[in-house]
């Protein structure tokens, strides 16, 4: 009983209302992040689903200070706020960016990279749901190969950008992946990120029932499968030292994950698409590379 209860939120730093879709990962994520980060935190939110979810009163969700900024500029806005807080002696007020994949992988990448390269002292959290969901499910460079979006109605033909590889190349003190199906791991990573100075980055694999096309109650199950299949492995790197946080007990085929999502349904019509086999190969290769990094 005690083991289970530790997952419960100790400090409830969200209000009861959020304007998210059913099964959305954002409000669960925000609840856990804010619980750890505390009410002194300044949240910086670029244009993304979350700018609506934490939007109109009384559905404004977060109890902390919130800055709704521009799509391209979250990390730059956060930089200005961080420096100004420091000059006022408020170094203990954390600054946290809560961005979607568009504001991280695409239009926000330049300001993100600049802040990471300068070693700015804040946490950047990317809630990656793999497309521009808020504006009608258009592909982003985080959209996985094979996924149907409104801009790739036959399925995206290219792989998602390896953003964690890009982040790693910035040699920042801490970066990690996390899943809403592994809340303990998520919470530990936020706690660790909070305890470190410098630029910190956490990528969340976010469930999105309307965009990924599945029933809202399957969000956590599908998030868990993404980890179990090594499609979205849980790892962290502290000062360049990698650690895998979860080792699946048995190998699960990626088709188990893809078949549960309508965005990949076309891959299973007329037999099984070659794309699935390719994705499996990529997953296996990426998993091997990750394991090799851990050994270094």
């Amino acid at each position, binding site marked *: 009983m005690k083991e289970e209860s530790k997952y419960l939120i100790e400090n409830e730093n969200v209000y009861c209302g959020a304007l998210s879709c059913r099964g959305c990962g954002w409000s669960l994520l925000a609840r856990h992040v804010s619980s750890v980060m505390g009410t002194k935190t300044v949240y910086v939110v670029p244009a993304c689903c979350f700018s609506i979810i934490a939007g109109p009163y009384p559905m404004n969700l977060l109890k902390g200070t919130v800055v709704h900024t*521009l799509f391209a500029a979250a990390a730059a806005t956060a930089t200005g706020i961080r420096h100004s807080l420091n000059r006022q002696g408020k170094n203990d007020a954390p600054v946290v960016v809560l961005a979607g994949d568009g504001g991280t992988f695409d239009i926000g990448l330049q300001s993100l990279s600049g802040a990471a390269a300068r070693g700015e002292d804040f946490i950047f959290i990317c809630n990656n749901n793999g497309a521009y969901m808020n*504006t009608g499910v*258009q592909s982003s460079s985080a959209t996985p190969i094979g996924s149907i979006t409104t801009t790739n109605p036959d399925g995206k033909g290219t792989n998602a950008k390896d953003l964690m590889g890009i982040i790693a190349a910035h040699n920042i003190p801490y970066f990690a992946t996390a899943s809403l199906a592994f809340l303990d791991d998520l919470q530990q990573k936020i706690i660790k990120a909070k305890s470190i100075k410098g630029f910190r980055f956490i990528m969340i694999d976010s469930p999105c029932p309307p965009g990924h096309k599945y029933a809202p109650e399957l969000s956590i199950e599908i998030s868990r499968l993404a980890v179990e299949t090594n499609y979205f492995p849980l790892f962290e790197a502290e000062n360049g030292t990698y650690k895998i946080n979860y080792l699946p007990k048995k190998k699960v085929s990626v088709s188990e994950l893809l078949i549960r999502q309508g965005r990949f349904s076309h891959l299973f019509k007329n037999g099984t698409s070659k794309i699935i086999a390719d994705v499996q190969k990529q997953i296996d290769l990426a998993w091997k590379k990750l394991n090799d990094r851990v050994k270094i």
Partner: protein
Amino acid sequence: MESKLEDRITLLDGSRIIIESAVAAGAEVFTGYPITPANLLYAYAGKRFPVFLPAPDEITALQWLCGFSSVGKVGVTATSFPGFALMLETLNMAYLMELPMVIILAQRLGPSTGSATAGAQGDLLLLRGCISGGYPIPVFCPADFKDCQELTHQAVKAAIQMRTPVILLTSKEMIMTNRSFDLNEFEEKEKVSLKYFENGKPYKPYLADEDTMVPPFLPLGNNQHQVRINSSTHDVNGFIQKATKEALDNTKRLKVKIEEGMKEFNFYSLNEIDEARILLVSYDISSDAVLEAAKVLKTRNVLVSTLILKTILPVPENILSILEYYEKVFIVEENLSGLLREILFGIQSQSNIYGINKIGEMISPEDIIAEVSSN
């Protein structure tokens, strides 16, 4: 068998008409980036354009169009103020390079991110000044669905004919709200083609035709002539120059090129009522309210003429003489300070010029009737 008239009445939005018209006019490429309220344009374009490219940001979207345009493929993109703001430097580049393209600007409530799902007419002054130096850029603005077809076609034609970026100005309700429309009102349109330089003489990329002031076009990679296009101040050869006479002459030509070239693209709708001394002026979605208000006022024995502007920039000369004729002019637009009013009449207030303005929701016929009745 010929279809009956009622068979062709359907529900549709302006986005679909604009996209269909752009493709029919010969635009071959659409580049886009998600932004409300332009997302329907983006979605339809993906199904209709021969080449469709989703960009990772608006700077990329417009730079791609410059690339396509410079090799002879005329393109279209669609955005709203936040994205348009990011496009401004590239728009200036396309203007100075003289690259044809159409940018659909779907207005929403500002400033800044504003309200993505609330309409507005707040970007007109920005458009008037968006080319550094105040150079004129063609701006067309559909007032109804028929215009969506016609003016999109004209925008593509103007872009190609004058070798220039052209803005198709619209707003949220025009392009997102479904309305019934009789498809019989659409006309067959001919495709517009980009003509290439065929003179046997050496090609100078910015040596303009003396009549039109437009330089003949040759695509990059044509294998016959060297083509040099330049985003910096340049001479007729496309060579970068500081403020030399030759370079400045080339830059000054851009103003004359648009002002002269736009004379054949003067579109407006004037409904003159005999004995009316009041004129209602508007554009875009507010035009509906103006036309309805005029009808109601007529039943109350208040005679008003209406003027709906469709070529908004540069302001056609004859529009000013129409305005001068009336004792009272009411400018109806969905913004706070009267952007069209300022363009037409300047910032000095005049006792016979009235603004009917509102933000956050559409101007209703009742708003107009009340204002006309109390003045």
